Each structure stands twice: as C-alpha cells, then as structure tokens.
C-alpha cells in the first residue's frame, strides 16, 4: 500500500456538481505503470491497455480493478497524510459540457499533448522518475496526426513545451483551461487562445494525461455498481462520510454504463445516499395531491395495487356475506380506487346489495380543496348508477394516531357490520413509539368483523442502517425489474411517474431518520406477530381470492414474472422468487370464538 502511495501520480476527483467523472482510472494508471515496471511477460496482455502502452495481463485486470478501489478509498481517507496536494489539483468537469468531456477523452486516447498537464507528476518529488515514464508512455501512444494533434497549434497555450517548469498551479490551470475550451469549441477553430481567467467554471481544471480509455463490460460494472453501493452504505454506517461521498460519485459513473432497471435503482439509491451524507433531507410533507398523481400512475402501470385491492375486497366481501348494512373504514382513501370493485360486487350479490357506508381517512391537502369529499362524491355517483344505498364521510387527520374511534360514529354491531382496511398505511405508524398501539386499540374499539392489511414484504425497519440499505436495495431492484420486465409498455410518462413514486420511498428509507422515516416496512411474519399479540386472529383469504389474483396477473403481459403465493392464509405477490407485497386479513378474538 505504501508503494502505491509513493507512486501516486493521478489526482482524486472532486466534482463540483452532480455530474461526476470519477477518475480512479488515473490512479489506476500508476498501478498499471508499476506492473509495467515489474516487467510482466508479453503474453496475455490486455489489448486495450497495450495500445496505451501499459502491459497488464488480462488475468490481472480484476486485481487491478480491486486495487483501484482500494486506492481510491485510501485517497479519501489519507487526505492529511501528505498527499493533500491531491485535493487542490482537482479535476472538475462541467457536467453540461459533454462534448468537451468527450473531446478530452479522445485527446488522451490519441496521446495527450503534454505530460506536463499532470501537475502532481511534477509536484511530487519522490515520483520524479515516473514523469519520465509517463511521458514516454504517452508519447509512445501518440502517433495519430489527426485533428487532435494539438502540437500543430502554434503558441504555448494549447500545447506547452515539455520542459516548461510548473512554476505555479495557475500556469497549469491555464493550460488545462484552454484545453477544455478548445475541447468544446472544436479543434482548429480560431478561438483557441482564450484567456484562462475568463473561464467561468470555478476551478475548472481538466486533467488529461492519465485517463486511458477502457471498454467497460456492462455486466462487470453492474457487479461493481452493487459493490460500490454497498461500500458507500457501509462507509455511511461507519460515519466515514468523505469516503462515502467519493464512492457515491463513483456510482454515478458506473450507473451511466448500465441500462434499464439497474441504472434507475442505482441512481435513486445514490441520490438518497448523497442526501443522507449532505443532510439535505427530502421533505415528506409534499403536496398530497402530487403524491396521489404518482400513485395513480403506479396503479395503472403495475399490478401491485390492483392485487392489493382485489384480494382485500374479496376478504371484505366474504365477511359481509349476510349483512344488510355494511361500513368500511379506509385508513388511506387517496383516490378511492379500491371501492368501485367492491361496490359492484356488493350490487351483484345474490340477495341484493346491502346499504354501503364508507368512511375515508386522509391527510390534509393544502388550500381549501377537500379532496376526500370529492372522492366521496364520485363514489356516490357510482353508487347511484349501480343502485346501492351509499353514505360517505371523510376525516382529515395528520396521522392515523390522531383519530379516535368515537369520531367515526360506529353503529352497533346488530345494525352495521364494520370492516377496516389499511393498504400501505400501518407501517408509517412505526415511526413513533406508541402510535401503532394507539391505532390498534382504536381499531379494536371499532369492533370490526374483518381487518384487511396490505403491506410491503420487506424488512426496512431494522436498527442497523447497512442492513436496511441492503434489504431496500434488493427489494426495490426487484420492484423496478418488474416494472421494466412486465412487458407492458405504458407511455414513458406513466413509467417515469411510477418510478418516481418508488424513488421517493427509496429516499425516505435511506436518507431519513427518526420521525421523518415513515417507510418502515416490515415483513409479514413480524406483522403477524404484532397482530396476534394485539389480540387478532388470522382469517384465511381463501381460494376465490387466490384465483382472482392469479387471473388478474395473467392479464398483465409479462404475467409470467409475477407470482401469487399463499402463505399461511395470506397472499403475497412477488416478482419471480421474491415476494413483494402481502395481503392479510384479521378478526378480533381468539380462534375458538366462531369460525
């Protein structure tokens, strides 16, 4: 490791914006150089690197990559160990200047015009032998007399003579600045000698010499991506924020080489990690109508919510089998998409429909709009159309714990049968101690015939951050995979909105803590324990629900990937082998009291 220290001739990368061009490859250069010095035999060389003058065995590539990682970590940690010059000679790429970056990459590939651009090379005395090597390496590569041949350009700015002294950092920066501007303007243009001070990019210093262009194997980067994500999370866990930050930027680069679900997941997780590191917490108190819109797109794009609604409805329907007046309490009414299907089923019940009463609970909306009432009005219209006696009441509360059973005006059991429904609502209560118990006791006071609970099947509420992160990574990877691979090709806006809906959850799980972290998903087994401890006994969901769920999923093209499973009377919907959401039904009392 110490050897590596001495031979460091690259620079670390601290991007000024969100676009990161982490160039661990620059550090890797010196590693490869070291290997070259040790004179490996010519056989089995990596071809691409050989072009650049580095002899690295293909079999050693993995090793090289690993050393890259290690070195970058060390670079992050060992700031104060005498290589602080690395932090000053930073490489900044303007994220919007994509063409400039590409030009710079191409420049290096065809041989950088001057080895002097590498400031650290010249700066660090112990590595004085290396600059020569570097120069030789680089000049050896340069044999293409293309437009990238900046030596053809007269003057000092574009291609300073190789013996110029690095008198000051500003000189170097000047050179690089002009390089970058030339990169963006295109070669051979007149605007080749801009004054470096004019360059508006703060500290914009581009570093060319030590960036070999290596073709990236997408699959390999996928693995590296996951590893980098995990490493970054671990760094956060250990409170090593600098290292975590460096790794997060690296993720950005790796994610760019991926496509599809993996890329999106990585991007969301990287953003969430960055928020956690910089403590820019997302506001959970966004306009609920905005989240409703996202939810609607999620509802339309994939079957999870439909599955939840249909299975819960089936359980409620069976519980309401003989009742004449029914009352459903919905803990999260949102747009009320669950209830039309139930109302239709009740309307077509043999024996005629019961009187249907719905109590919807929801968060406050900004402004004077009463969203709950509007939903209630729509449902009332539907009820009138299909001939059901309908009654609606909406309750606006900040959280479920603020609600009291008396507020709901529960009618006695002989008059009305009650069902309580909670889809993705109960886990939010775990954010504050005591809230869940309060709500559970409220539920008990409502004396429901059935309680339907739909929750995510994941453990995102463990005490250790790293465990939560790992679990969330797997969970949301499967979820995004299913969105991509379900074969349904919704308009890209729908897909993007659904992903955004999930992305906000990811942000909450990873970046928030304490009372803000509301996405505290827990697996079915834990919910079962909670329910049973609270005095509920499970109600088996039955084969009708199972059949209907299976049929529903078969309608989604790519239904092969979705899997409905029965789990001790509960139904889970998963993607391939991974269950993602679980529906369960409960009733009060012990198992002996009636069936």
């Amino acid at each position, binding site marked *: 490791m110490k050897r590596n220290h001495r031979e460091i001739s690259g620079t670390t990368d601290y991007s000024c914006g969100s676009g990161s061009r982490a160039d661990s490859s620059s550090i890797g250069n010196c590693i490869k150089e070291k290997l070259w010095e040790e004179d490996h035999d010519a056989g089995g060389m990596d071809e691409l690197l050989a072009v650049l003058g580095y002899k690295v065995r293909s079999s050693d590539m993995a090793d090289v990559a690993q050393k890259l990682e290690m070195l970058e970590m060390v670079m992050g940690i060992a700031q104060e160990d005498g290589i602080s010059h690395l932090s000053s000679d930073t490489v900044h790429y303007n994220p919007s200047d994509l063409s400039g970056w590409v030009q710079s990459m191409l420049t290096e590939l065809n041989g950088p015009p001057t080895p002097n651009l590498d400031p650290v090379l010249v700066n660090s005395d112990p590595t004085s032998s290396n600059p020569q090597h570097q120069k030789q390496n680089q000049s050896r590569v340069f044999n293409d007399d293309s437009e990238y041949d900046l030596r053809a350009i007269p003057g000092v700015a574009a291609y300073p003579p190789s013996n110029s002294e690095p008198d000051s950092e500003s000189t170097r920066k000047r050179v690089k600045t002009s390089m970058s501007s030339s990169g963006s303007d295109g070669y051979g243009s007149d605007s080749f000698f801009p004054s470096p001070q004019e360059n508006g990019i703060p500290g914009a210093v581009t570093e060319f010499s030590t960036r070999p262009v290596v073709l990236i194997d997408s699959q390999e980067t996928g693995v590296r991506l996951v590893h980098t994500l995990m490493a970054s999370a671990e760094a956060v866990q250990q409170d090593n924020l600098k290292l975590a930050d460096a790794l997060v930027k690296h993720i950005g680069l790796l994610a760019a080489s991926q496509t599809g679900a993996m890329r999106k997941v990585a991007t969301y997780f990287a953003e969430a990690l960055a928020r956690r590191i910089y403590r820019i917490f997302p506001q959970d108190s966004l306009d609920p109508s905005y989240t409703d819109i996202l939810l609607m797109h999620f509802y339309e794009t994939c079957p999870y919510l439909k599955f939840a609604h249909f299975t819960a409805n089936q359980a409620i329907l069976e519980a309401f089998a003989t009742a004449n007046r029914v009352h459903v309490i919905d803990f999260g009414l949102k747009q009320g998409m669950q209830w039309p299907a139930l109302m*239709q089923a009740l309307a077509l019940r043999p024996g005629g429909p019961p009187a249907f009463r719905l109590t919807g609970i929801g968060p406050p909306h900004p402004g004077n709009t009463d969203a709950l009432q509007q939903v209630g009005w729509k449902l009332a219209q539907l009820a009138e159309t299909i001939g059901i006696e309908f009654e609606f009441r909406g309750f606006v509360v900040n959280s479920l714990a603020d609600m009291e059973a008396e507020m709901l005006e529960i009618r006695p059991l002989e008059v009305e049968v009650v069902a309580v429904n909670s889809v993705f609502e109960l886990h939010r209560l775990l954010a504050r101690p005591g809230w869940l118990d309060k709500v559970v006791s409220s539920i008990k006071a409502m004396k429901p015939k059935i309680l339907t609970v739909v929750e995510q099947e994941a453990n995102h509420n463990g005490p250790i951050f790293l465990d939560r992160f790992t679990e969330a990574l797997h969970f949301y990877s499967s979820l995004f995979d299913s969105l991509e691979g379900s074969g349904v090709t919704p308009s890209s806006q729908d897909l993007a909105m659904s992903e955004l809906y999930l992305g906000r959850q990811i942000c909450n799980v990873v970046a928030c803590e304490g009372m803000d972290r509301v996405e505290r998903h827990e697996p079915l087994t834990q919910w079962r324990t909670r329910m049973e401890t609270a005095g509920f006994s499970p109600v088996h969901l039955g084969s009708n629900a199972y059949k209907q769920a299976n049929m529903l999923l078969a309608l989604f093209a790519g239904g092969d990937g979705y899997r409905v499973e029965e789990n001790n009377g509960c139904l889970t919907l998963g993607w391939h082998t991974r269950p993602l959401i679980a529906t369960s039904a409960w009733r009060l009392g012990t198992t002996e009291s009636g069936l």
Partner: protein
Amino acid sequence: MAQNHHRGCHRRNHQETVGETEEKRSKFFINDHADILIEILKRLDGRSLCVAASVCRLWCAIARNNSLWENLCFRNVSPPTSSVRSVVLALGGYKRLYVGCVRPVRSLLGRVRRASMARDEVQLSLSLFCVDYYERLGGRNSNGRLVGESSPSSLMFLCKPVNV
C-alpha cells in the same frame, strides 16, 4: 354473406317486377323479420357482429341491441341475473363491457383457458369495467386531471398487445 343477401333481394325484386307482377310477394326478406335477425345475430362472435353492424342502418340499429352483446359476454356462462343487467346497462352497456373488458380479458387469458374460468373471467371483467367507469366519472377534480375526458387508463394494461 350480407352482400349476397342484398343482391339476392334485388335480383328477386327485379325478377318479380320483370316477371309475374301479379304474384304476391311471398319471398322471405330478412329485414322484415327483426326478431329472426336478432336470433341469428345473437349467435355470432364479436367480430362478425361488428361487421354485421356496418351492413345497413337497420342492421346497425339492431346490432346495438344490448341483448346481443349480453349474449356474447355470457356465452358459455350461466345467464346473468337481472341485477347484473341493470348494473351493466348503467355502467355503459354490454357492448362497452364486451369490447372494453370481456374480449381483451378472454384473449389475454386464452392460453390458460379452462371452462370453469369463464364465470370468473366475466366477474373480473365486470369489476374492471366498474373501476373504469369510476375513473371516467367527471367531476370537480382538484388536481387538474381531466378525469372525465381522459381515456380509461385503468384498463390500459388490457389494451396493450400481448407479447407471447
């Protein structure tokens, strides 16, 4: 079939006007017997029914008859109760139910078809139909989404071609 029908009619008429004019017109003309026509059309499949609807105005009017489409929806399934009829009619009619829900559901589930599933298919279609109606309900919607005029998006997943 329809074309021949009409040609046949014309030919017959022509012959009659040319030939025995005093002979009473005792030939059978299907358009005179709407109930028989309905019985015939009842046995058609969806596509043929739509084709039949484009034959002439009479046939178009008849093909819009809900009982025809009801038959189509509940083919292979025990006949529905009257309550179903009223509900479906209120939600938009059987033709809409068939075209929007039953037909895509049947075609999507076609590969795993079993006779026992026919009833469940219809029930599922009914549920989806109802959800669709609810979504299409106009109203004072605060988030600016033109719910009343937007296409029924909750059935979107049914409309996409299946990539088997």
